[in-house]
């Protein structure tokens, strides 16, 4: 959910950025991190825990906790909370620890 009005901060219109999530089209905005864009689209489950396959979202948003790891353009373990969204990115939920192909 985007904040439209705020007493202290301005959130001016920013350029839309098209990307895909789980194969489907989605829009974020310039300056978003991947995780911020997903949250703005109502997606909070970003990955799955490796043992019990429980859904996981981010916890710290500053690149510490590893709870936001996703597969981005085929690369696993991308810290989506500190990685800027870029046009055309293919973002998918990560199950487990991820593997390089």
């Amino acid at each position: 959910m985007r904040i439209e009005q705020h007493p202290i901060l301005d959130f001016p219109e920013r350029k839309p950025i098209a990307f895909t999530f789980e194969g489907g089209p989605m829009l974020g905005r310039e300056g978003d991190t991947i995780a911020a864009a997903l949250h703005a689209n109502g997606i909070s489950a970003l990955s799955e825990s490796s043992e019990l396959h429980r859904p996981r979202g981010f916890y710290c948003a500053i690149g510490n906790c590893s709870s936001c790891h996703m597969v981005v353009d085929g690369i696993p373990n991308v810290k989506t909370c500190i990685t800027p969204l870029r046009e055309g990115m293919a973002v998918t939920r990560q199950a487990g620890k991820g593997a390089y192909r």
Partner: protein
Amino acid sequence: MIEKELVIVGAGPAGLCAARIAAEAGCRVLLIDRSPLLGGQLIKQTHKFFGSEQQRAKTRGFRIAEALVADLKPFGDTVEIWQEATVVGAYPDSVLTVWTNGEYRKIHFQSLILAVGAGERSLAFENNDLPGVYGAGAVQTLMNVYGVLPGKEVVMIGSGNIGLIVCYQLIQAGAVVKALVEAAPKIGGYKVHASKLRRLGVPILTRTTVVRALGDSAVKGVVLSGLDENWNPIPGTESEIACDAVCVAVGLSPLYQLAWMLGAEIPYVGELGGMVPLLDENRQTTVSGVFAAGDASGVEEASSAMVGGRLAGLHAARFLGHLHPDHTAIDTECRAQLSSLRGGPFGAKIRAGLKKAEVKVHAR
């Protein structure tokens, strides 16, 4: 291998201030931060800071970040900045490894300042890993930096200053704070912040904790319980609150990992938030040439992080043979500011902690 004179890890208030003073002294500096934005925790802080005028109190946090970044502009030739670059390894032979842009780089440094800050703690309760359970600082980042609200109805756990301030900012951003929950018998943070929330009608529940989050793939509510004098849940006092986000504000712990990899001594000092490097009076760790400043050496505030950063920058420069023209004056001034920031009853815990984390190994 990339050769660098002084490397500073972390571009929060401590790292930015260290970079400026070291550059003034004539060092060539490489400042590294994993975030796309410079300023550390300051970039998400919309409230006016407390502290003293010298550390820019009464200015909003994100404005302080802008000012500190602007302070480095005149040193564009000697201060190199890598953003979106994470230091992933540190080796005792003065080598750092950095992951940036899909590339793995190795750096050899002559001196290093660790200004990596602290990480938010978690709390043990059932379902605490559900999406929608966030650190309070994470929510602050999401809403104040990116303009995105993680939920409409929020329950805050922890009434220290961070819990109190983030509650207020959630309301400013349009969310409803359903309850502020605190296990202790009274509010942890400053009264002014708590009074603001009371006036806005936020229920403040002391001697209460969260025992469970509800939901399958996302948070739908929490179960709270009253606590007795020994902090044990009182049977029969459980109650349910519907919410779509839970913020956990139970404190921060210093990020000690890089200091540990370098072989620095890092005792546990509860008063400072966890594992911290032992420091001499010039902020040098037990590893020669490696310094630490800011929350990474003990969780305090941005004001002390700025001054501590200046001190670390000044002494790292001296270690490298670049004596700042005003070395003695700045040194004296920084120490005076730190003791005034840590004076009074609120500083008692920090003062006790710092005593335990102090060592006189490199006294020269």
